[in-house]
């Protein structure tokens, strides 16, 4: 092969303007391919689910219009959707960040439950000493983050130090976390006043996190938005994120570069656990006011789906989480108006998940994208 330098490589090109850069981005398969495939997968999943509904003799049109009503149509339903999106952003991040370093870590549900429980129990003695809420709330949040980080860090440590498959270990840790939480909530930390539904003692009214700007959406959403941006910046624009992406993309190359792979893995797991723990804190401080079985509401698992659909991009996690928040919000409406069980949304989620994974096979094979444009395949 003759060695000639191609004309594009000449230096000193003028900096392109915003519009030409935008146009460039819209033709760049690296950027638009995931968007096209994810949207396509959603449409196909909706079609498959419509078929499911038709077989059952239900109307897909009614279903989707109810989803629209329940999730997007009014300020009330939008607030409802955003409210449910808040923990999903955090648990979505809890899956996406380890995924960037190559780990399939499913422990968000467990970290969320333990984080929530920690926040609820650590507040009680502090409340007792009548410390101000401005002191207690940060302590609660930090403790929840710390416990979550340790819990998911454990799966990362087992992976790094012992080579234990992190997917299975993190799922097992989730079951163990829920068992520990049930044990503590029904045992030592139980509020004797909680008769039917064992719970910890309720937080004082000053420890309940209020809503943002007169809406009914709590501050967890703001925390999620800020964290999504911060983590995007961390992964895309810092040396830490760069090293993590090398590790996730090719472990052997990372080792060959002498990167501290173990430390990177552990840090990513701990960040993930921190996000999930924080979600637990908001569930307790903004929604339930105490820790009980309602903490294990499946946000940790839905977060996996959110992250998959967002292709592990922290910024894309936000809109996807809002979408699933809206589906969740519309669930009750669908259940009542169409007389369908609450598991309907579970089925829909499963269908989306499956179609999404099948769509992975389309990468690099979309007929209308010019893949070779960005390289010379010889």
């Amino acid at each position, binding site marked *: *092969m*003759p*060695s*000639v*330098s*191609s004309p*594009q*490589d*000449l*230096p000193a090109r003028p900096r392109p303007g915003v519009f030409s850069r935008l146009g460039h981005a819209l033709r*760049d398969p*690296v950027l638009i391919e995931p968007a096209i495939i994810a949207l396509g997968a959603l449409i196909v999943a909706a079609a498959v689910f419509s078929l499911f509904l038709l077989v059952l003799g239900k109307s897909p049109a009614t279903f989707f219009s109810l989803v629209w009503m329940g999730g997007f149509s009014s300020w009330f339903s939008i607030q409802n959707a955003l409210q449910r999106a808040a923990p999903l952003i955090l648990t979505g991040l809890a899956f996406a960040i380890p995924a960037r370093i190559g780990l399939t870590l499913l422990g968000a549900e467990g970290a969320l439950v333990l984080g929530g429980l920690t926040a609820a129990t650590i507040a009680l003695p502090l409340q007792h000493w009548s410390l101000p809420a401005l002191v207690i709330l940060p302590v609660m949040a930090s403790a929840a983050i710390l416990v979550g980080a340790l819990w998911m860090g454990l799966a990362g440590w087992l992976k790094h130090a012992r080579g234990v498959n992190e997917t299975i270990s993190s799922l097992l840790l989730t079951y163990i976390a829920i068992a520990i939480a049930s044990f503590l909530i029904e045992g030592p930390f139980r509020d004797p006043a909680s008769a039917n539904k064992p719970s910890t003692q309720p937080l004082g009214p000053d420890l309940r996190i209020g809503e943002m700007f007169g809406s009914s959406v709590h501050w967890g959403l703001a925390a999620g938005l800020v964290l999504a941006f911060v983590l995007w910046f961390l992964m895309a*624009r*810092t*040396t*830490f*994120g*760069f*090293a993590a*992406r*090398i590790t996730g*993309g*090719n472990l*052997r*190359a990372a*080792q*060959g*570069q*002498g*990167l*501290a792979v173990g430390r990177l893995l552990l840090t990513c797991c701990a960040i993930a656990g921190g996000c999930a723990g924080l979600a637990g804190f908001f569930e307790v401080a903004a929604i339930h006011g105490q820790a009980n079985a309602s903490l294990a509401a499946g946000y940790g698992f839905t977060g996996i789906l959110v992250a998959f659909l967002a292709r592990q991009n922290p910024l894309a996690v936000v809109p996807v989480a809002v979408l699933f928040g809206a589906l969740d919000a519309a669930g009750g409406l669908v259940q009542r108006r169409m007389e369908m069980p609450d598991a309907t949304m579970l089925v829909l989620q499963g269908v989306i998940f499956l179609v999404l994974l099948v769509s992975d096979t389309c990468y690099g094979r979309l007929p209308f994208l010019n*893949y*070779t*444009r*960005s*390289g*010379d*395949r*010889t």
Partner: protein
Amino acid sequence: MSQSPLPPRALALATRGITKIFGPMRALDDVSVEVPAGSFHALLGENGAGKSTLVKCIMGFYGADEGQVLLDGAPVRIDSPRQAQAQGIGMVYQHFTLVPCLTAAENLVMARAAAPAVINWRQETRGLEEFMDRMPFRVRLDKQVADLSAGEKQKLEILKLLYLDQRFLILDEPTSVMTPSEADEVLTLLRGMAERQEITVLMISHKFREVKAFCDGFTVLRRGRVTGGGDARTASVTEMSRMMIGETELRERAARESRGLPRPRLVLEQVCAEDETGRQVIENLSLTVGAGEVLGIAGVSGNGQAALVEVLAGQRPMSGGRLLADGAPFTPRRADLDRYKVFGLPEEPLRNATVPRMTVAENMAFRSFDKRPLAGRFGILSPARIRAQSRDLIRRYNVRTSSPDALIETLSGGNVQRAVLARELSGNVDVLIVANPCFGLDFASVAEIRAQIMDQRNRGAAVLLISEDLDEILELADRIAVMSEGRLTPAMAVETTSRAEIGRLMGGH
């Protein structure tokens, strides 16, 4: 050797005008080869000359665009390896087709086109023992293939073809995984069988020594065309190599500046390592590489070289021993890599040294992303500077890519290697660890990459070259050590040793 009672019914095979076109490339152009019954024929050629394509056309992996295959003079149609097998044509591939978790016996029985649905092992074992008794060499039937040595596996592959009653054997560089003595043993036996008209052999090779010693006829391919052929016993090596390489002269030893006694830069002391199953793959390996020299490590593949490279790249833990750089203890961590200016060119760079789904620019920044000027305060990266740096490297090292933002997996193999070379060699290099740098690359790239390695040596770097290509080592190295079964011989100056001696050492003698 026991008298072999196989009936003498070797097959004759010929190809007539075979042409195979892949996209814009003519991989084979009007190729006619004649292999008479009972002959031991060599198919010679450089990497990419079309040897593999030709045998794959014969075996029915590919359909030829033109031309035909004649078996005992009559045209045959072969559309799949199964059909080739049914016609009596069998092939031993470079990569093994044995299943590691099965025993030799299980592998042989399952290779039969019609293995019984329920296998009566007592009966089968008796049959296999009888078959083995008739064969010139044997392999333990009850042993798991995973526990066989590379040479034994190769023998089992050949036995498998004979067991399936295949009388035309195609061997794809069968000796590349064997020690010279194992190779001689197997080739001698095959040649004997061919002489007795029991089988016909077509062997792909690029080792002139073997061709001279064992083959009767040979055909040379270059760029998809037949460039010559004849009687291997009378043709000279110079003639054969001219047919193979064309106008280019055979490579000489690279030009080098000689120096006085070099200062030791990289030292390995009693290094040991194990594989995943706990088997020791490197045993008490010690070596010293001095500044301004190339230490070549030769050896048949699979004797611990891969593990050695992995130890040096931090991909495999040491179970004993230590590494020194400039006389100080060294671990392959980033801080030490930077302090002692240690760089590496691993084999298969796309798999070992790049992230396929990151851009060319990002891949070229692996060594420098955490340092100024690419990283600013608080470890914040500058994508613009990453891109600017790569633009400069792309120009200097002639990496052919449409843009620094292209994913590196879209580049050709030679360009990936050049991109890695640019990343690893653009700064000051004190220690360079190179493993099979020219695997599967075209002629021009090979010359360029070897020149770069020599350039680093001449600028004072200590170069450790681990290669399975003995010619490459003889061309580049100042001193040579041989690796065999995880152990390393003491290093010898190239001038004081010979190919024969190295070959003997590769066999562990």
